């Protein structure tokens, strides 16, 4: 039995072994190196076993301190800071994709090994740290009984929450620690299957439009292309009427949206497809151009054809544009927040913080950190820099970053960690 197990393992390793990463490839920036397609019978996989922080903290650059602002959360995802400085944390887990193949069952078991065992809260928690010492005096459940809340935006005295199946509004009284107003549905969001269930949200600079990112219903169309109607898109929703138009398409899984402060342009971080090798396809940060097609599922990084999709669509591929800035393959970017009002100053004045949840589809763990992409004139200007690290220790995962939020009032960065169920607070050392 043991022998059989060893043999099986050896065979699987042999099948996956021919797909090692080449450390010399530069997979970040505007023109990432793209190796050839490398499909293997078993995709290269490495799941970092969760071990927790054991009293330790992530690593931040010199001149900064990091402290846990809240622990024992129930799968924190995205963070929003209200005008009065109160911090909202969306907690939960969604998706109801049926398992269609033996693979779905096996992959589910494997990927669960890298996740928390805590059940998603389906709520929004409020933290109040009025004196700004990093220790909240108040912690309450702000809104309960939500359906996998993820994106949040605050506009004109109301909180907007993107649940996995609807965009909803809650009217808010300043200073409230618990919402009393009833929930108002702005519009339903596509939620059948919800293979990628997170609905990212941000408001336009003038507050009139709400942008919602809707992920694809599969890796690459393996659930059939019919279920991809209204998926892998960004919707622009009129805040008053709830009417929507499709703003951009072919954008596989836009997991966080944000407005760039100097140009007011919409930007997104997007998770690209798996199982083409350890270094395909790079996840990316991009400005979201109205009417643009970003390739999914037919092509990646512009017009590189993905042969797995049939029937192919060469005419549409001709219109595919390449994103602005690669973040690295399989880093799983889930958080995006621009530094505003001068950021932390110095090298961290203008740019974007990116929360990278971390990879499964490569042997060399990638992501598992918060990166900083410097900007100049509203465009990325230079290679990414590590900002928060230490999520991996000896190949095991202490945490996994999701949402990141820069709070200009307090000059802090908040990072949601959905493995250790913590929100980290990073502040300049006084």
């Amino acid at each position, binding site marked *: 039995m043991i022998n059989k197990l060893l043999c099986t393992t050896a065979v699987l390793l042999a*099948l996956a072994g021919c797909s090692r990463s080449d450390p010399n490839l530069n997979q970040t920036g505007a023109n990432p190196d793209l190796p050839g397609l490398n*499909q293997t*019978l*078993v995709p290269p996989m490495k799941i970092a076993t969760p071990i927790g922080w054991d009293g330790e903290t992530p690593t931040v650059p010199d001149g900064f301190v990091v402290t846990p602002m809240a622990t024992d959360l129930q799968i924190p995802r995205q963070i929003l800071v209200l005008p009065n400085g109160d911090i909202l944390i969306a907690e939960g887990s969604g998706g109801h994709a049926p398992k*269609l*193949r*033996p*693979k779905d069952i*096996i992959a589910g078991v494997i990927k669960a090994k890298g996740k928390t065992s805590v059940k998603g809260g389906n709520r929004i928690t409020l933290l109040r740290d009025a004196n700004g010492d990093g220790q909240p005096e108040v912690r309450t459940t702000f809104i309960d009984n939500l359906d996998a809340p993820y994106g949040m935006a605050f506009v004109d005295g109301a909180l907007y929450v993107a649940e996995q199946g609807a965009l909803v509004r809650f009217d808010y009284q300043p200073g409230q620690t618990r919402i009393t107003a009833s929930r108002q549905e702005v519009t339903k969001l596509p939620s059948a299957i919800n293979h990628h269930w997170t609905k990212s949200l941000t408001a336009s600079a003038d507050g009139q439009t709400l942008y919602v990112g809707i992920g694809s219903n*599969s*890796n*690459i*169309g*393996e*659930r*059939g292309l019919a279920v991809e109607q209204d998926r892998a898109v960004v919707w622009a929703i009129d805040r008053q009427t709830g009417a929507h138009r499709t703003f951009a398409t072919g954008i596989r899984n836009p997991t966080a949206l944000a407005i760039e402060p100097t140009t007011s342009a919409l930007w997104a971080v997007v998770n690209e497809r798996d*199982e083409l090798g350890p270094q395909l396809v790079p996840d990316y940060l991009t400005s979201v151009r109205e009417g643009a097609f970003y390739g999914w599922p037919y092509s990646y990084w512009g017009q590189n054809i993905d*042969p*797995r*999709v*049939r*029937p192919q669509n060469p005419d549409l591929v001709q219109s595919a544009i390449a994103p602005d800035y690669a973040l690295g393959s399989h880093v799983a970017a889930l958080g995006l927040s621009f530094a505003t009002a001068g950021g932390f100053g110095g090298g961290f004045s203008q740019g974007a913080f990116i929360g990278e949840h971390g990879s499964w589809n490569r042997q060399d763990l990638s992501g598992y950190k918060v990166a900083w992409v410097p900007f100049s004139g509203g465009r990325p200007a230079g290679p990414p820099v590590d900002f928060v690290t230490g999520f991996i220790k000896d190949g095991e995962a202490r945490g996994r970053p999701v949402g990141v939020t820069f709070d200009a009032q307090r000059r802090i960065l908040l990072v949601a960690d959905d493995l250790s169920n913590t929100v980290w607070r990073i502040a300049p050392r006084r």
Partner: protein
Amino acid sequence: MPAVAAFRERLNPFRGILMAFPIALFSSALISDIAYLKTAQMQWSNFSAWLIVGALVFGGLAGLWALIDLALSWRTPARRAAVIHLAALALAWVLGLINAFKHSQDAWSSVGAFGLTLSILSTVLILIAGWLAYSNSTVREIA
């Protein structure tokens, strides 16, 4: 060894039942693979994936029986057929295992030319194994 021969004959229905599964399932997977390649409808590929797994489960049990049968027929004229039967079955099973992984790839890659080839080979080999299983009865030896 009349006792052993009688024992083999008494167990023969088990082999018949076990072999019926991989014979039917591998060949059905071949048909649904062809249907997928003709239509690009994912459901056909999903069917194939489960059919192949079913063929592996029952094919594995049939292989176990083929091993026992080989031991029992070691000193008889039936040995040659038993060896070929086991070899064909084992090869069909190994190719089926590779095909199960092939069918775990996404969309068109779940079948493609390689998956179809494996399905054809598994089907042909399992039919050979079945032919030998069903014709290699002790009746013939006695006659």
